[in-house]
């Protein structure tokens, strides 16, 4: 009686273990803005939050008001240039640049021009329109691009303090808004994120 009961329990246990072992990857849809930290490395949430906070700070500074005073009714034109990765991680800075562009354009207070790479493609397209295949009414002229007033550039830096199994990492994002005509720096922004990542030494 006891043996049979034990036997059944064992069979159930083995089946449960087998099912668990055979289970494939589980996939769950999450909100894009949900914070999920897995490895402790720079991730999409860091990129988005830093971009939003820094652009908010940038647009609240005096340079914008001064520009609007000297150019009534005109929004300054900004170009987002390079953000150099000077960190301990392979960070795709293009994601961060796109987050910056999104935060800038959504503010509605500045306009910005296409990036260097994008402009190459756009010029090729416009050049193609000049060959006579495109109707004159819809053809775009070559010399009506808007020149940027300001260039936004920066870097992602890290300071890592590491001992085996744990580390503290400080991400420091520096952005600078420079007036293209004069090369005067109109705004310098800095945002820091600090993370403590620990890996346990033992597990069962």
């Amino acid at each position, binding site marked *: 009686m006891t043996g049979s009961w034990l036997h059944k329990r064992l069979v159930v246990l083995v089946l449960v273990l087998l099912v668990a072992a055979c289970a494939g990857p589980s996939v769950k849809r999450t909100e894009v803005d949900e914070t999920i930290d897995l490895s402790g490395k720079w991730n999409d949430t860091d990129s988005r939050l830093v971009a939003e906070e820094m652009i908010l700070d940038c647009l609240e500074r005096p340079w914008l008001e001064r520009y609007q005073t000297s150019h009534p009714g005109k929004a300054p034109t900004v170009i987002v240039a390079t953000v150099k*990765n000077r*960190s301990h991680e392979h960070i795709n800075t293009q994601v961060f640049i796109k987050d910056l562009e999104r935060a800038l354009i959504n503010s509605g207070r500045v306009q910005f021009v296409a990036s260097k790479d994008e402009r190459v493609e756009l010029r090729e397209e416009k050049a193609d329109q000049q060959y006579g295949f495109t109707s004159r009414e819809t053809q775009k002229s070559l010399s009506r691009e808007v020149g940027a007033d300001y260039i936004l550039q920066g870097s992602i830096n*890290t300071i890592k303090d590491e001992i085996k199994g744990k580390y503290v990492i400080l991400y420091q994002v520096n952005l600078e808004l420079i007036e293209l005509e004069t090369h005067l720096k109109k705004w310098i922004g800095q945002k820091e994120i600090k993370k403590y990542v620990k890996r346990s*030494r033992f597990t069962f």
Partner: protein
Amino acid sequence: MDMSGRDLMKITIKTYQCLNRRLAFLVLLAVAGLLLTSLSGCAGPRKVYSTVDELNAQGDFILARSYVEEHAKDYGKRNRLLYLLDRGMFAFSIGEFREAIASFTEAEELMSELYTISLSQEATTFVVNDNAAPYRGEDFESVIVNLFLALSYANLSEVDEALVEARKVDSKLTAINLQYAENEQNAYREDPFVRLLMGILYEMGQTSTDLNDAYISYSKALQGYDSEYQRFGVSFPEPLVENLLSVASFMGRAELRTVQQRFPSYRFASRADRKEMAEVYVLHLNGRTPIKQENVIVVPTPDAQVVKVAFPSYEKIPGRIVGARLHALPELGKQQFVADFKVGEPIGGIAIENLQNRRVRIYAKTLARVTAKYLAVRKAQREAADQFGGWAGLLTKVTGDILIFMSEQADLRSWRTLPEEILIGKVTMPPGSYQLWAECLDASGGFVEKVELGRRELKAGDKILMQFRTTE
């Protein structure tokens, strides 16, 4: 928490002594079961390595990479790290840098994950042998992974990514250094060659911050060669002094004065002059790193029997090539640029020393395990004899002794596709088109083989990193 060998032995023996009668049998069964698992795991890499070693020795890296990929499963789950390291090394050797990056990146992540020790797996190493645990890699291997990652990115002209690896090396070496007391000798706490390479990469970055980082890297490299690598008979390579002086002159008078105190009459090119020239750094990955061999000793027991105890030790693989000379012939003009290679990284020496440093710990653990197995078998023998008679006791003893004999295997795993040493050569030339090659030399300076490095178009300010490999 670090236990001494004596503590380890006491705890293991005590645990075994606490086992009750039934458990004594169960231990024997567990040993048998785990032995089967262990042996199946050990056979994998050993089987793979007979072919991998042969192809590596022949320098047939293309076939070696295919073979490793086809036999990925034969490495076994516990040796996934070795598979990734071997695959990365062969991919790197044939210039498949994207593939090398993928393998080495996964290897680096796995090393980080394996920092967390599974207690259940670790317990198995006390019952069966050290092969029962996953291979975690040595400290120097974890740094060399980043070196090859940096070189792979540099070969793809992705300097920013190469610099990320350089920063990781800085951080890792600092963490490794912190493990040792300041007066602790013969420990892998600094890697001057990696620092030198990182300095060259930082210089490629061109910004003042990069040059500052380059100065720090070169300075640490020089300190490392002076204090750490003397014991391997390796002194600083020439390019280190040239570059350090040049970057120090950019940093300021105080920095330059500090370096010139050490090298008062050394002539060097300023940063401005170097911008007018092209620099080619060539790494020669020479030979095959030593591989671990099993040393078996037979220890007599109190009941006049013997037990087998197995330890790993390194065996060097002698190579014919010991040096090389770099040649650069311009397309226009006849003046040939020549530079001798010099050893920068004694990988074989580091590996041997690393194992020697852990020798006492390995010995203590092995002896504790063998003693514990021996006591368990004798206890099981007594219990079997008491319950089922003398023959059962004898049968248990014979089975147990065979299991001890078979299960005691030294952990011979290591990243064995590494070179024995890395040499570095540098030529500085005016811009132009150059044919590059290296002449490999034997111990008496005799010519062994010529390695073509191809034609390169060099612009002013170019800094090119390239490499070749010989296993003869």
